[in-house]
C-alpha cells in the first residue's frame, strides 16, 4: 500500500514536470519577443540572443510604434466594424436556421458554411475587380465589406449552435403571445444573445485583425493593416531584429489581450468552428 502510494506520487510529480516543461517550450517565442524588444541596438548582438537585456530599453518599441502606429489605427478601424457587422448578420441567420427550420434549410446552411473553407485565392481575382469597380480597392471600407461578407459563414455557424441550445418552448410561448417572428427575435432571442455575441465578437475580431491575404492583396502602403506593415518591416534588410520583434509584439498585442481576458470565449468559438450541425 505504501509502495503504491509513492508510485502514484512519483507519477503525479512526473506529470507536472512534463506539463511545466511543455508549457515553457510553448512560451519560448514570447520570451524571445519580449527580451529582444527590450534591447537597444547596441545590445543586440547575435550571440546574446537568449540573454536577458542588461539595461532594458524601450527604444525598439518606440521606433516600432513610429513605423507601425498608422497601420495599427487602420486595423482597429477595420476590425471593429467588420466584427460588429458580421456578428449581427450571423445572429439573424443563426436565429432563422435554428428556430425556423424549413424544408431546404439544411441545404442553405451548407451553402453558407462552405464559404468558410474555400481558399480565398479562388475568389481573389474577381474580388479585386469588383472592389475596383466599386471604388473600394485600397480602402479600409473595402476591407470591412470583404471581412463582413466572408465572416458570415462562421458567425452563422456559431449563432446557430448557440441558439439551438435555447429551448423551443420559449419561442412557443412567444408565438402564443402573438409577437411573431421579429417580436420573438427582438424580445426573447436578442436579450439572451449576449454570450453568443461575445463568442463571435472575440473570434471575428481575432480573425480580422490577424488576416493577411486580403490585406496584402487589396490595400497599398498607407492603407494597409498592421499584419502587412509588420511583414514589410521584417522584409527590409536595414531593420534590426529588436525592432522587428517589437513590431511583432505590437501587432499581436490586441488579440493577446483579448485572449488573456476572454480566452474562454475564444476557445468556444474555436470549438464551434469545428462544425456541429
Amino acid at each position, binding site marked *: 500500500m505504501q509502495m503504491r502510494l509513492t508510485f502514484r506520487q512519483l507519477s503525479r510529480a512526473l506529470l507536472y514536470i512534463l506539463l511545466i516543461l511543455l508549457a515553457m517550450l510553448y512560451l519560448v*517565442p514570447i520570451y524571445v519577443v519580449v527580451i529582444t524588444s527590450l534591447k537597444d541596438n547596441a545590445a543586440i548582438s547575435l550571440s546574446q540572443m537568449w540573454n536577458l537585456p542588461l539595461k532594458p530599453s524601450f527604444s525598439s518599441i518606440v521606433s516600432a510604434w513610429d513605423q507601425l502606429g498608422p497601420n495599427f489605427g487602420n486595423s482597429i478601424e477595420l476590425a471593429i466594424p467588420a466584427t460588429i457587422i458580421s456578428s449581427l448578420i450571423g445572429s439573424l441567420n443563426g436565429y432563422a436556421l435554428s428556430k425556423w427550420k424549413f424544408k431546404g434549410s439544411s441545404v*442553405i446552411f451548407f451553402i453558407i458554411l462552405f464559404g468558410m473553407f474555400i481558399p480565398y485565392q479562388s475568389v481573389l481575382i474577381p474580388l479585386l475587380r469588383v472592389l475596383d469597380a466599386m471604388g473600394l480597392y485600397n480602402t479600409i471600407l473595402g476591407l470591412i465589406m470583404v471581412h463582413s461578407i466572408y465572416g458570415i459563414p462562421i458567425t452563422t455557424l456559431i449563432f446557430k449552435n448557440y441558439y439551438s441550445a435555447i429551448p423551443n418552448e420559449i419561442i412557443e410561448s412567444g408565438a402564443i403571445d402573438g409577437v*411573431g417572428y421579429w417580436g420573438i427575435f427582438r424580445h426573447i432571442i436578442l436579450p439572451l444573445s449576449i454570450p453568443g455575441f461575445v463568442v463571435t465578437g472575440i473570434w471575428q475580431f481575432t480573425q480580422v485583425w490577424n488576416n493577411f491575404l486580403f490585406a496584402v492583396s487589396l490595400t497599398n502602403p498607407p492603407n494597409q493593416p498592421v499584419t502587412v506593415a509588420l511583414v514589410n518591416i521584417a522584409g527590409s534588410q536595414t531593420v534590426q531584429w529588436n525592432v522587428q520583434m517589437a513590431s511583432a509584439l505590437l501587432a499581436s498585442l490586441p488579440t493577446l489581450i483579448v485572449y*488573456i481576458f476572454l*480566452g474562454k470565449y475564444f476557445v468556444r468559438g474555436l*470549438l464551434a468552428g469545428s462544425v456541429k450541425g
Partner: protein
Amino acid sequence: MKGSMVEISDDVAGSSSFRRKRFRISRDRISALATLAPSIILLGIFVYGFIVWTVYVSFTNWNSFIPNFSFAGLKNYLFVFETFRFQSDLRNIVVFTILFIIACIVIGLFLAMLIDQKIKAESLFRSIFIFPMAVSFVVTGVIWSWILNPQTGVNLILKAMGFKHLPSWFLSTTIIPNITVGQIQLGIPLALLAVLIAAVWEMSGFAMAVYLAGLRGISDDIKEAARIDGAGSWRIFWSIILPQLKATTTTVVIILTAASLKIFGLIYAMTGPGQEFVTDMPSMDMFQTTFQGNEFAQGAAISVVLLIIMAAFIVPYLISTLKQGEDE
C-alpha cells in the same frame, strides 16, 4: 401540408391547429427565408459567383497586364502542371499537410491526455497551449524566422550543447530522400521542417482543445468497468479511449487539412517560395503569379486546382456532419 416550405413543425407550434396561427406561422417562415436572403445573395456572388468567374478566367488568355478573355482551353492548366514550381508546390503541400497533421494530432492528443488527469491549474496550462492561435500566422512567421535563424537562435543552443553540424533550417535546400521523378525530387524538403515547427506551435493547441472536449465526452463508467476487468492503462487507451475519439480525430484531420492547404501568411512572412521552391505552396504561387507576374489566367488555374483539392475533403465532411446534426 407535409413537405411544403411553410409547414408547421411540432417543435415550434405545438399541436395547435388554429387556422389563424397556422397562417401567421407560415408568414414567420417566409420571414426566416427573407432573413437569410441577403446572406445567400452575398455569398452567392462573393463565393459561388466569384469561383465561377475564377474558373472562367482560368480558361482564358489573360496572361498580361491587360485583361484578355479569349478562350484558351486547357492551356493554362497544362502549362502550370508542367512548371517546376507548381510540381514543387504539390510535393510540398502533400509532405507538409501529412507531417503537420500527424504532429498536431500526436502532440494535441498527448497534451489533452496530460491535462485530462485532473491536474491543478488546468485552465492555465490549457491557455498556454492554445494562445498561439490568437496570434497571426504572419507574426508567428516573423518570430520563428528569428528563433530558427541559422546564425543565431536555436542553433546557438545546439552549438553550446556541442553539436557540430548545425541545421540551416529554412535556408536548407536539401530534400530527403533524394529520389528524382521527372523534374522534381520527391521527399521531405528540410527547409519545410522549420515552417512545420512554427505551424505546429500555432495550431497544436487547436487539436488539444478538440481532443480535450472529446475526452470529456467519454463516460468514466466505461473506463472504470475496463479497469475492474483488469485492463491496464495502455489497454484502456488503445481499446477504449482511441476508438471513442474516432469522430473527434476526423474533425481534427479535416479542419487541419483545410488550414494546411490554405497556409499563406506563415510562408509569406517566414520563407517565401524559398530557394528552388523548397517552401513554396500553391497559395504562394498563385499570389505571385497573379499579382506580381500579372499572369492572371495561370494564377486562376492554380487557385482552381487548390479549390478542387480542398472541396474533395470538405464537401463530404460537411454533408456527413450536417446529416448527423439533423438526426440528433
